[in-house]
């Protein structure tokens, strides 16, 4: 079950860019059940503004459809739906949206499946929180 959370946005929900600029910051959508891994991903992204963790997959898809969406991070298993199906739905909604999928280290089969279903990149965590932040930074800039 996904839980609601709004992470690191300012009181207007607009936030500022990482370099302190005032350009509109695009939303980083994190999808994943309430698990240690999802929390670690959210923690890794704490330096970003406009990180959202929608309450449900429907809500995550609705956010994905929004023009403000900068990228989608699928942090963990989604208890309501297989990751590949959710990924495919999100990809069909937004052809050009960067979608990053987090996998366990060395789970090559899952990584290949995610790529086949529309992931832009698969990042293994741990150890690569830095790679995740780099990818997200590029996606929202």
């Amino acid at each position, binding site marked *: 079950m996904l839980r609601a959370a709004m992470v690191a946005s300012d009181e207007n929900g607009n936030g500022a860019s990482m370099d302190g600029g005032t350009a509109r910051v695009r939303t980083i959508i994190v999808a994943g059940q309430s698990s240690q891994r999802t929390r670690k991903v959210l923690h890794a992204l704490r330096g970003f503004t406009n990180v959202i963790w929608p309450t449900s997959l429907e809500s995550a898809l609705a956010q994905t459809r929004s023009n403000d969406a900068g990228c989608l991070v699928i942090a963990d298993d989604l208890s309501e739906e297989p990751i590949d199906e959710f990924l495919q739905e999100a990809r069909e909604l937004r052809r050009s949206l960067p979608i990053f999928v987090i*996998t366990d280290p060395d789970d090559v089969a899952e*990584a*290949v499946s995610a*790529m*086949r279903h529309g992931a832009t*990149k*698969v990042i293994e965590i741990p150890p690569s929180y830095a790679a995740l932040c780099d990818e997200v930074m590029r996606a929202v800039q």
Partner: protein
Amino acid sequence: MKELPQTVFVVDDDDAVRNSLKLLLKSAGLHAEVFGSAPEFMSKYDAAQPGVLVLDVRMPGMSGLELQHELNLRGAAIPVIFITGHGDIPMAVEAMQHGAFDFLQKPFRDQDLLDRVQRALTRDTEYRAKLRHTDRIRERLASLSPREREVLELVTQGKANKMVAGDLGVSQRTVEIHRAHVMQKMEAGSLAELVRMMMAIARQP
């Protein structure tokens, strides 16, 4: 023209792997050709030959990923199934980002490889059929006169004959005649079919 047979090309520097894969593919009724290195494959590969490439990632000299890159540069659309005993996620992601059909880690079950090979062969058949279809459309397009091309472009934008006549500075009757020639030369039964043809060639480089 006679269709070339579908072939499973196997490129692996390990003799034992090459031979066992050849036997496996043969036992499944598939035609296989094996190569010990990427350059050996490249020297003999004909892009007109339909099939699938089963490719080892790590090989001395040119690696599997480098061979994939080279094939992409040459515009070869053959589906590539990578096989590797030492795969990791960045390697798999790179291969898939560059259009690999699949990425399998050794050891794999024989049936897993055969299933993927069959799916890749189906995709190759479908792709080549689409390519032949768009080639035929392009041939028909090349048979149009410059004026007929102009009429085609305007009518497929949804413009009525009267508007086309205005745009081109000719009479409506002239547009009707050109339009009839376009439909005949393009072998289109309706405007909708003509639009679909133009969309098909726009989608395919």
